């Protein structure tokens, strides 16, 4: 049915269109509606690919992403643990350009004019759009951790955007003196990848156990509890007994400051000299969302059914930047939201059938070699938000075969999602 509509649309004049029950169609001067996608990660790359693939060339899709090689944040902890190489995490956009006809531009988007419907790039180019999809990931809240700013990120890496920061953190871990101390300042909710800091602790412990078994790990956490806590703490006791000291909110984990020159961390008034300090600050939507005028506070509120901004119907926000309701900020979630959004945007621009939104997420984490755990849920669009429909979580005390299978499954998921993102 939708094919008939689309064919009619493509072969008809604007006047004839008025007789169709299709949504308002916004065709650009050159005849094709234009979608600009900013951010080439799990949300943006997926949205661009699905729009191009499913519209068979009826939509002009431009993807703006600064990096020529994109390193996935998911699985980057496994690089810290020695289970993956950096190359395993790197992906390029060649297939999206060559096989899907997406106009891939490697540049920074520096401004959005929502009235004129244009995006300005750092290189000076201006892109017009009918629909804009923002999937810029995260930025850090200024002043979130006393003593830390992006100016000191090479002394105290965040490593929460994968790539050179991840490599830097690993080199610092490997250079720790015998019996040294690794500190993490964990972020407050909400933040990208809820189990991420704790998988990272596991992977750092794994690397240290092999190379520096008397080293210590301290975690200052502003939260009273965290994702998969029972599973992680069981795993830390089992694999890394005595190594990890997690200081939660109850013990002053939220009262923390750092000194990058002195390499000290002060938790609830107690100063500790550390060898590596991984500061994961509070997060907010990627900056371009602010410039597009779609944020309210730190995040960009969106409608659940199509991820459209509550501030502007022609701008959609995906993934970490979106304030959508119950979904965790994860690559899986962004990928899931992208497909719902692409379907809705294509429908709005070409009259194709818009199917009801369905969302899902699963987060796998590796605690030690072949000791994988997972948590997941499905979600639906309600008028208020993306709402959880229930889910599952790995159990404490599972047998080793189950944990190994869970890890192997996560590797399968990785292959699957990057194929879904990059073609």
């Amino acid at each position: 049915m939708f094919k008939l509509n689309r064919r009619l649309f493509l072969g008809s004049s604007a006047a004839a269109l008025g007789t169709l029950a299709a949504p308002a169609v916004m065709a650009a001067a050159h005849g094709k509606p234009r979608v600009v996608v900013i951010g080439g990660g799990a949300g943006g790359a997926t949205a661009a690919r699905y729009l191009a693939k499913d519209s068979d060339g009826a939509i002009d899709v431009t993807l703006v992403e600064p990096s020529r090689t994109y390193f996935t944040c998911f699985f980057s902890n496994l690089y810290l643990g020695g289970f993956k190489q950096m190359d395993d995490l790197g992906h390029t956009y060649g297939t999206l350009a060559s096989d899907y006809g997406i106009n891939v531009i490697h540049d920074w988007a520096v401004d959005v004019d929502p009235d004129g419907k244009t995006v300005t790039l750092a290189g000076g180019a201006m892109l017009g759009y009918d629909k804009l999809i923002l999937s810029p990931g995260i930025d850090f809240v200024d002043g979130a951790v006393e003593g830390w700013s992006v100016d000191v990120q090479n002394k105290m890496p965040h490593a929460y955007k994968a790539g050179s920061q991840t490599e830097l953190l690993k080199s610092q871990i490997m250079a720790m003196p015998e019996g040294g101390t690794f500190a993490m300042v964990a972020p407050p909710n909400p933040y990208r990848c809820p189990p991420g800091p704790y998988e990272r602790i596991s992977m750092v412990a794994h690397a240290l156990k092999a190379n520096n078994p008397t080293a210590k790990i301290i975690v200052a956490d502003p939260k009273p509890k965290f994702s998969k806590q029972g599973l992680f703490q069981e795993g830390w006791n089992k694999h890394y007994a005595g190594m990890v000291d997690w200081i939660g909110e109850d013990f002053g984990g939220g009262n923390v400051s750092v000194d990058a020159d002195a390499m000290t961390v002060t938790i609830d008034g107690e100063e500790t000299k550390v060898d590596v300090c991984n500061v994961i600050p509070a997060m907010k939507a990627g900056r371009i969302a602010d410039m597009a005028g779609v944020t309210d506070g730190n995040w960009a509120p969106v409608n659940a059914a199509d991820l459209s901004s509550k501030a502007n119907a022609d701008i959609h926000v995906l993934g970490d930047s979106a304030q959508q309701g119950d979904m965790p900020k994860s690559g899986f979630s962004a990928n899931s939201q992208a497909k719902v959004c692409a379907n809705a945007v294509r429908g709005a621009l070409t009259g194709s059938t818009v199917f009801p939104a369905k969302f899902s997420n699963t987060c796998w984490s590796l605690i030690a070699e072949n000791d994988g755990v997972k948590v997941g849920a499905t979600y639906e669009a309600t008028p208020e938000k993306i709402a959880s429909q229930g889910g599952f979580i790995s159990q404490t005390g599972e047998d080793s075969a189950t944990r190994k299978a869970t890890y192997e499954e996560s590797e399968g998921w990785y292959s699957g999602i990057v194929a879904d993102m990059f073609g």
Partner: protein
Amino acid sequence: MIRGRFLSVTTAAATLIAAATHAEPDPDAGATLFNQCKACHQIGEGAKNRVGPQLNDLNGRVAGSVDGFRYSKPMANAGENGLVWTDETLNAFLEDPQSYIPKTKMGFRGIKDAEDRAKLIAYLDSFSPDMLLHSSDNPHDLDPAILAIKGDVAYGEYLSGECKTCHQEDGSAQGMPSITGWAEEDFVTVMHAYKNKSRTHPVMQMMAGRLSNEEIAALAAYFGGLE
């Protein structure tokens, strides 16, 4: 082979299935046990029907269905009544063939030791690279009205986005089972096995659990058409 195509299950997926029930038996140990079958059965490349039917692609095969082999009436009837060879049905048959299918032509006393049967079945499975169905997935257990639903391919394509976060569109399997090109009945049968929780995988129970019968049919129609 009557049932047509079966999906390929990767090593990892086979491990998942095994992990849910018991540790995976070692097929090499089964090779020795197979010696007692060799007088009548061939298996492996170029295997032909002899006294008994060839045993390649046995797992997932409808009983009594190898072309050119003259089965006993009871064995042919069992297949017509829906018996499919799976790990579970083979286990029951091999324990005592004459009691499982009375008057089968297979003149074999059976294997009483459960571990030996598991090893032998693992060996047989190693020649069934495309095995799919577990005995608990028997399509005959499903309401025929569910199997009869004609899936909407366009809706299936949309819904497939959820599957493709893990299962690859081009059918390649790198740690996740390939789900393209299955017979629609198999796809529907397996998805309902997750939906009704007779299959145990938590992610798939969750995904299938909220799909309607029509949505499962739509996915089956869409993925069935992918090479």
